[in-house]
């Protein structure tokens, strides 16, 4: 063992579905000199992370601060977490991932009834702490509509997850260049409830994109949720050049870059420290807010797209 898998793997918010192969061996990071309870423990501690707090970084990803050292400050992060917990005591923010279908109800001064509901598929989740944003996409009257919501916006009255699932990619911006059927969801969709013990399903769907032109060069991105049509798009010489370019730019060697992984993630010890601080309150909130929801039913089979 000896792998700090908790720190290195799953750099995207989707968790293990987007598993990268950078499972390198990292020693106790030598420049981590803050006094933590765990500074002496090695192997037993890794298992503690994986057992207790491993799922937290997927369910509550915005509690982890931005890894950029220039912007890190412990006091501010503590204050942010306090504010986040206060807000969560008034609004039940469900677990959701990119690819889940959500329904959001906002207070809107200009809407009839003063509320505004939107249903859509979550195409991306960005930001940390109170600046955490999620974007929902749907097709309304033949037009694609994307709305970005602040997760901690006080005008949000309700967020409910209608279908909880993950996708193969970090963000689903390619749905803009996909046929409408992939982004259309009825506004009166019934929530699909699932029992707690079932792991979050990964939808392995491969979207077939519209013919070009696209809004971005999707064939150059390593998209797992898109039907691979690069042979039809690129000439053989373009493919060879693209392979060379990818290697030169470092796309191929990125998975071996441990320092890059370290810089772009929060170390496992710190994650545990953070979730240690908040997990009790989160558990209490989970219990109290879920009591208000209706009873669970069995998972109903749904028509696939």
């Amino acid at each position: 063992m000896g792998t700090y898998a908790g720190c290195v793997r799953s750099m995207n918010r989707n968790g293990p579905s987007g598993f990268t192969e950078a499972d390198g061996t990292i020693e106790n990071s030598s420049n981590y000199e803050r006094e933590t309870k765990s500074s002496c423990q090695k192997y037993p501690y890794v298992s503690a992370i994986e057992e207790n707090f491993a799922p937290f970084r997927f369910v509550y990803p915005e509690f982890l601060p931005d890894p950029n050292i220039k912007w890190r400050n412990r006091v501010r992060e503590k204050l942010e977490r306090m504010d986040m917990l206060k807000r969560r005591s008034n609004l039940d923010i469900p677990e959701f991932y990119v690819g889940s279908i959500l329904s959001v109800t906002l207070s809107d001064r200009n809407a009839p009834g003063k509320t505004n509901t939107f249903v859509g598929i979550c195409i991306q989740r960005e930001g940390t702490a109170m600046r955490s944003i999620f974007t929902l996409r749907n097709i309304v009257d033949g037009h694609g509509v994307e709305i970005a919501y602040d997760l901690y916006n006080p005008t949000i009255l309700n967020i409910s997850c209608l279908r909880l699932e993950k996708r193969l990619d970090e963000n689903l911006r390619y749905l803009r260049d996909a046929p409408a059927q992939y982004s259309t969801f009825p506004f009166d969709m019934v929530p699909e409830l699932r029992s707690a013990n079932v792991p979050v399903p990964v939808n392995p769907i491969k979207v077939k994109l519209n013919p070009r032109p696209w809004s971005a060069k999707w064939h150059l991105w390593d998209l797992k949720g898109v039907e691979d049509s690069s042979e039809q798009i690129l000439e053989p010489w373009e493919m060879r050049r693209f392979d060379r370019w990818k290697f030169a730019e470092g796309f191929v060697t990125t998975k071996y870059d441990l320092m890059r992984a370290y810089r772009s993630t929060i170390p496992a010890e710190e994650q545990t420290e953070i979730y240690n601080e908040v997990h009790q309150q989160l558990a209490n909130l989970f219990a109290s807010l879920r009591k208000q929801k209706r009873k669970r039913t069995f998972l109903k089979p749904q028509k696939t797209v």
Partner: protein
Amino acid sequence: MTSSLLASALRHFQNGRSILLQNASVVGPMSNLGNFQSLNGNNTTFGGSVTFVQTRGSRVKTRLTHPRNTWPKRRRERNDQELTADNQAFLNKVVYDKYGPAHFDWRAENTGMPFISPLKQIIYERGEWEPRSIRTGVIGRKIGIHPMWDKDGNRMLTTLVQVTDNHVLKYIPPETVEKNYGPRFKRKDVGLLLVGAESTDPQRFTKEYLNVFDESGVPPKTKTARFMVTPNAKLQPGTPLYATHFKVGQRVEVFGHTVDHGFQGVMKRWGFKGMPASHGVTKSHRRGGNTGGGGEKARVWPGTKLPGHMGNRWRKLLGQHIIRINTKYNVLYIRGHAVMGEVGSFVTICDSFLSCAEEMDKSTLPFPTHYPEESEEPIPEEYYAPNIYNFADPSIVFEDKR
């Protein structure tokens, strides 16, 4: 007070160049003394006419890169090989015993709260507030940016400034100020209050620098700043200053140095538009182009906008709102993301002198400062401005008035 003059100056400024308010400095009659602003934390001397002048493009040197020859030498050259480990440990113990554990146990992550000075003898009696009194400011560290919402659902950004371990170091009465500093400070009736932030190890500093801190009985401080105060606002050396020195809803001045961008080209530094990337443009895509005309004065004029060092300048922000105060960690939430500097840089904050700031009754502000140990009721952990949404409150709902 020259508030009416300020008001007229501000109106003139706002009509013409309201966007550039951040770049302006208050330049009074001592505009010829270029280094004045960079030395002083808060030059609040409004003796004569006041104009808001852009310092960009002028020849006033505003980037101070060397210490003054009048200042005592600060850092002591340490040669750790001179002492054995036992001797070093003994010295550490002496320091610890002299100043007490509270000084070195303060940490921003804990609370940032300073302890109360050991000076029991009252040197200065507390003054009473009068109109036109000027109280001290505080030194804080910018710790980051945080969004807040108001009760109508409008989002705004706030900059968090933590007031870390502030103590008053010295008070210099107006007569001594006039004698020592002479024509620099035109106002004859203000004294000088020296404030320090963040205690550090005295073994780093020279003896003569440590003498500065003898009067207050606190360890040497990482950062010091001067505030001009009226004599009735003078404070006992060693008095701690907290974030509750200010009130929520108040307007403040924030003075600090901006992010250092290094040597920058003309497009980033002065906002030039550059030239097209193609269509025959030869080697001049980000250059400045023409530098002047010909004729009698056929030369590049002083103050021409050219590439050069950008940033690391002392700038003052006027009229910033404080919308929230956290008393546990001594944090001020200042509206906007305009507070200058990187995360972790020092700023000094004091009351605003703008005429629009007079909507808040100055007599309600704690004078000369806030003494939390003397408050009868327990101090709440958070203060919010009236229209600001508190996250502990329920979600914002708009009422249907039909």
